[in-house]
């Protein structure tokens, strides 16, 4: 696979996201698959952040540790990120008279890096343009560097700012012209020793969106009508997306006073019979866990999104991790059935939302969907979502008047219900009433502390777990029938693993989307054929490995674990896997 990468660095609030977004959209429109990765610190202005785009004409779902083009809004990028520039790469900056240290000069010489200083201030003064247009100037120079045509950029700018009036648009256009003329004069396009691969039409009509945006569309698509949340990175972008679209969707959106409230509001709305959800990150989920347990005993469908970031405590708020898998599978007191799913890319971030609601309603259980910062804020190039295959499944929800009339109060929690799943009906329905009882209860929800009842109700609920395990799909496998190396992972590692596999036809990849209950048949079959089994996770313990060991006794030959807040990078993973395959 031919891939190039571009990194824009600067202080938060300087406009690096705007340059990154414009380049990403422009490149996708031009016929490239783009993968975007943002790093930033937990503050609003300042700090050092970056927006990296990895670009290919083939499917790409990962970032590299080194880049072809480095754009530095300020001198910190020059100091920090120069070491990450590839041979023959380019550094574009706007720090006048910047002097590199002797060590840096050595890197520049050895790697034949071209350093370009852009007179952004001067250009702005000449244009009589506000500083914000500096972003357009920089984007235009990058555009020239990549060998693309300025008209593509103009079309994009027109689309984004056209509604803001002719004057602003004209100003943007002259900024593009000025920057491109400058780039031409300085022969910028010759500076970069490499080039973009040939564009391919197939990417032009794809969507370019983050995991959170895909998930948000999935939430809307699934018929969710109430969303309650409390801001916490990296779940906030989902709340923001849902809130921003509320006037179009008509969804009830509540920013609650805390995560407990958000979880309770969601639960109440679900009990009443709509589809509702909440999302949070680790610390917020800790607060929600008692409510997870509550929903289990009252057999209330409920949907929680848990967007992971590194803990413990506040940890690394704006970085990524997969350290909350066991939190999702084991949190909250008591024993009860639940489903844990993990999204891995924009495709399943969308599709899993309908699945989550369907499973929640069919089995009347809490469903937890894991995502992480890397997925929630990563930018993916994605085919338009297939909406045809979505079905809304509401399980044993009784709504017809004649069926409601037949119901007895004791049907609600009848321990003899097949698979433990009872009919469910809603407040307001003309039928016998029951109590959604948080204490251990008998068939109509009356408190019942007898031994026989306690055992019967526990068994009723746990039967749902068996039934759920029967209908859940096995993990997805891609690769040869008899892989040399079987890689097993989950969540957002999927993209980088797929990219790394392109390098080696003897690697097979088993991806877990459904994590609890855990299916192990495909895994044990493949593991028995593979020469080596490798677990890949962004956590310290190898938590999926722990679950697998618990469920089927399998020990992995190797574990590639990462717990520094960063996702796996493409070159890093290729190197780690190949070092394993080399060691025979």
């Amino acid at each position, binding site marked *: 696979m031919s891939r190039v990468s571009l990194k824009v660095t600067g202080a938060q609030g300087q406009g690096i996201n705007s340059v990154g977004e414009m380049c990403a959209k422009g490149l996708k429109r031009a016929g490239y698959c783009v993968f975007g990765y943002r790093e930033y610190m937990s503050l609003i202005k300042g700090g050092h952040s970056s927006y990296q785009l990895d670009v290919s004409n083939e499917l790409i779902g990962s970032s590299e540790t080194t880049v072809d083009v480095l754009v530095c809004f300020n001198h910190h990028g020059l100091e920090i990120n120069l070491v990450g520039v590839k041979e023959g790469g380019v550094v574009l900056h706007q720090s006048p008279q910047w002097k590199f240290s002797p060590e840096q000069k050595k890197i520049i010489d050895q790697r034949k890096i071209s350093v370009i200083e852009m007179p952004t201030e001067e250009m702005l003064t000449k244009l009589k343009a506000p500083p914000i247009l500096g972003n357009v100037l920089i984007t235009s120079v990058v555009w020239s560097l990549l060998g693309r045509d300025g008209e593509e950029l103009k079309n994009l700018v027109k689309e984004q700012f056209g509604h803001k009036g002719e004057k602003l648009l004209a100003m943007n256009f002259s900024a593009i012209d000025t920057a491109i003329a400058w780039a031409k004069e300085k022969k910028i396009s010759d500076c970069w020793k490499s080039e973009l691969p040939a564009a391919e039409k197939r990417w032009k009509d794809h969507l370019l969106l983050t995991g959170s945006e895909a998930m948000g569309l999935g939430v809307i698509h699934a018929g969710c009508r109430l969303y309650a949340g409390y801001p916490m990175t990296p779940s906030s972008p989902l709340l923001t997306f849902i809130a921003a679209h509320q006037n179009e969707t008509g969804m009830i959106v509540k920013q609650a006073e805390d995560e407990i409230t958000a979880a309770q509001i969601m639960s109440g709305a*679900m009990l009443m019979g*709509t589809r509702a959800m909440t999302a949070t990150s680790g610390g917020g989920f800790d607060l929600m866990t008692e409510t997870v347990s509550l929903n289990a005993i009252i057999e209330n469908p409920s949907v929680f999104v848990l967007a992971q970031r590194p803990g413990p405590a506040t940890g690394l708020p704006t970085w990524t991790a997969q350290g909350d898998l066991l939190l999702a599978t084991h949190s909250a007191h008591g024993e009860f059935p639940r489903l844990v799913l993990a999204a891995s890319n924009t495709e399943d971030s969308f599709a899993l939302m309908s699945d989550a609601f369907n499973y929640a309603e069919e089995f009347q259980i809490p469903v937890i969907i894991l995502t992480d910062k890397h997925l929630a804020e990563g930018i993916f190039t994605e085919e338009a979502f297939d909406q045809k295959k979505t079905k809304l499944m509401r399980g044993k929800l009784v709504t017809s008047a004649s069926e409601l009339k037949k119901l007895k109060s004791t049907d609600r929690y009848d321990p003899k219900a097949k698979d433990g799943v009872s009919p469910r009906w809603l407040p307001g329905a003309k039928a016998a*009433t029951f109590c*959604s009882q948080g204490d251990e209860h008998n068939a109509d929800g009356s408190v019942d502390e007898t031994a026989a009842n306690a055992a019967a109700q526990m068994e009723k609920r746990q039967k749902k777990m068996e039934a759920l395990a029967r209908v859940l799909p096995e993990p997805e496998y891609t690769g040869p029938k008899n892989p040399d190396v079987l890689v097993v992972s989950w969540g957002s590692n999927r993209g980088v693993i797929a990219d790394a596999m392109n390098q080696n036809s003897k690697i097979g990849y088993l991806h877990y989307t459904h994590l609890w209950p855990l299916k192990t048949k495909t895994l044990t079959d493949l593991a028995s054929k593979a020469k080596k089994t490798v677990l890949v996770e962004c956590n310290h313990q190898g938590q999926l490995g722990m679950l697998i060991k618990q469920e089927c006794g399998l020990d992995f030959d190797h574990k590639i674990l990462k717990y520094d807040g960063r996702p796996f990078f493409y070159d890093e993973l290729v190197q780690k896997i190949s070092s394993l395959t080399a060691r025979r």
Partner: protein
Amino acid sequence: MIRIPLDNAGGPKMQDYHHDNQCTWCDGCGDYGIWTAAKRALVELNIAPHEVLLCYDVGCHGNMSDKLLGYRFHGLHGRVIPFAAGAALANRNVPVMAFGGDGASFSEGIGHLVHGLRSNYPMTFVLHNNANYGLTLGQASSLTWQGQPMNTSPNGIPERTLPSMDFVFSLEPTFVARGFSGNIDQLTEILKVAIKHRGFAFVDVLQACPTYNHFATHDYLLERCYDANKEGHDPSNFAAARKLATDSSERIATGILYQNENTPDYYEQLVARQNVKTQAVDEVEKKDVSAWMKKFV
């Protein structure tokens, strides 16, 4: 006035709310009175059991959850308000009543009370106020009188008693009433107005706890409670209501102390729901997102 209604021509009857489970409260517990008044208010408002959602917190009062019919929910300690609010927002056609004790509402879940009042959710909240934690065997709550020896605080609590009514009024409520579990007739009338109120109706019910509350006993409350509305109190007067509510040194004012129906409830304030005729519960269907997808191309 003595009313024994109970055959509401064509409408629901008290018997319709009857559950065979026997009450488990102590003899003389105030919960009996609140239980009776709640059922009676619903019957007199012509609300049948299947037309209401009754939500209970955890505490002695929560043992009401299986002592009557109606769609009911019995949840977590301190969390009944947001659960009930979520339910109320999802279907405005089903009146939602939440019941909670003073332990749950002024300690564990006090934040929910603050935001329930502030948000003005379309629901009724009934405070079972017996000034202690009964179900866990008589510990001090934040509404227990300071210095009163209780289980786990034999020397009396060092903390000051939380001025609950002053606190509630500081949050600009739209409905505040106070009832007494020993006056079922009046409490019924209060609950009827509360259920019909536009927004969050806060009903503080002073109740006896014969087992653990040996200070504000049934007789104590009986002696001091009076009907402020009968004495001419105007519930539209916020300042007068606050004064009446907070000063219980001599006599305790009961009745509808404050009501303001000019403030829209939480749901009515939602821009996204203006002119929407359906309820969220009616709107669960697969939604075409093609238009939104286009923005990402």
